[in-house]
């Protein structure tokens, strides 16, 4: 069997579950989250040659791929006029904070189409994954100051969007 396939299978065996957790939290839909995990590994399979050893482990790399896959699903939903993200199921039955998860999806829903893709990725990395600003800056090849600037202007925008749209309208 091809080495790439073997590598991806090993990564799937080790990380698919935690990626599923991330996708459920982002998408609020378990079947869509399963699809997103599959797409994440297919994208990883295509990009395996680009994975650099200087990355701090495979999981942060896979997390970023999963973010892109989920944001694409969210944009498609928005284009098709699908239901609001915040109206989907809580992150998980018995979630530690389903209201927080639903609120996060509402924010993403409001932001989709309003800010560029890179900013959306930074929002997810910072708020959902809890990645430090310095680490985000390193991943995206921008300065830490640029990350802070994006997050600051984004806070103002989100505050404005929520005030005008209601939290779960």
């Amino acid at each position, binding site marked *: 069997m091809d080495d790439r396939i073997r590598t991806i299978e090993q990564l799937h065996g080790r990380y698919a579950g935690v990626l599923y957790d991330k996708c459920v939290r982002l998408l609020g839909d378990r079947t869509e989250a399963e699809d997103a995990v599959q797409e994440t590994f297919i994208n990883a399979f295509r990009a395996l040659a680009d994975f650099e050893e200087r990355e701090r482990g495979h999981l942060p790399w896979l997390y970023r791929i999963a973010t892109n896959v989920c944001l694409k699903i969210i944009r498609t939903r928005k284009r098709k006029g699908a239901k609001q993200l915040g109206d989907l199921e809580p992150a998980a039955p018995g979630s*530690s904070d389903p209201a927080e998860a639903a609120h996060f999806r509402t924010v993403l829903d409001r932001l989709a189409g309003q800010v560029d893709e890179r900013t959306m990725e930074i929002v997810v990395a910072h708020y959902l994954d809890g990645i430090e600003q310095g680490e985000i800056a390193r991943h995206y090849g921008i300065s830490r100051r640029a990350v802070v600037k994006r997050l600051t202007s984004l806070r103002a925008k989100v505050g404005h969007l929520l005030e005008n749209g209601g939290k779960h309208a």
Partner: protein
Amino acid sequence: MPDPTGLEGAKTPRLKLAQLVSGDLAPDEARALEAEIENDEGSRQQLAEIRKNVEEYEADADRHMALLRARMVAEQSAPAAVPWWRRLRYYLPAMATAAAAAVVALLIFTRGFEEPTEPDVAFKGALAVKVVAKRGPEQFMVASGQQLREGDALRFVVTTDGAGYISVFSVDSRGKVSPFYPEADPRGSPAPLRVDRAGRHVLEGSVILDDALGPEHLVVVFSPERFERAAVHERIRRQLESGPRVSRLLAQVAGVKGRVEVITVEKVAEGP
């Protein structure tokens, strides 16, 4: 600056917790994080939530892995897309030698050529099936061995690794075959359901279970190639009566170059 977004507040980064669950942290780092989590209720709940989701996904890990493997193999064997201007370099020499090729072809045809040997049944396609049951306000996933009741509504979610044809039917305890998708009698309408892409297909509507009690097989057939439903149903029905329910074997018996998944449920009378 105050945070009007309401997004701030996570104490332990989710990625860190995921790394802990995956065994990615060095022993010292893991111990320090565990101590931190121990003192924070929110982090403990988050960790429990991650573990629960991991468990949920891993309960179906073999199926997920099979689908992923099939997609990777398909991707690997697919020819890479070549831009049209680069394809010209293949066409031009071919055009230049067209006349000579015609002569060669004539020679070949007059001498005859060997038929390629028919390969053994080649199994293509990967299939993952989820069945969701609705009973009143309650919804639950259906697993093999599950007890269901008359009137339960079933919804089928079928994930395939490519375009192809799907047929969903049941075989009840009396050996009666009931087509679910497509609903029409396969003798009058032999075509299976066509899906034109890889991915998750939520089959429209739902199936309401009848009152035939006892074991019932819910069968999903997927093949990249079109097949005759009635014949396939009958072959699978016979195999289910006596033989093992191995997916590959069922596909072979049915004569489809794809996959067959069977979920066997137990239909019971409504409880008190």
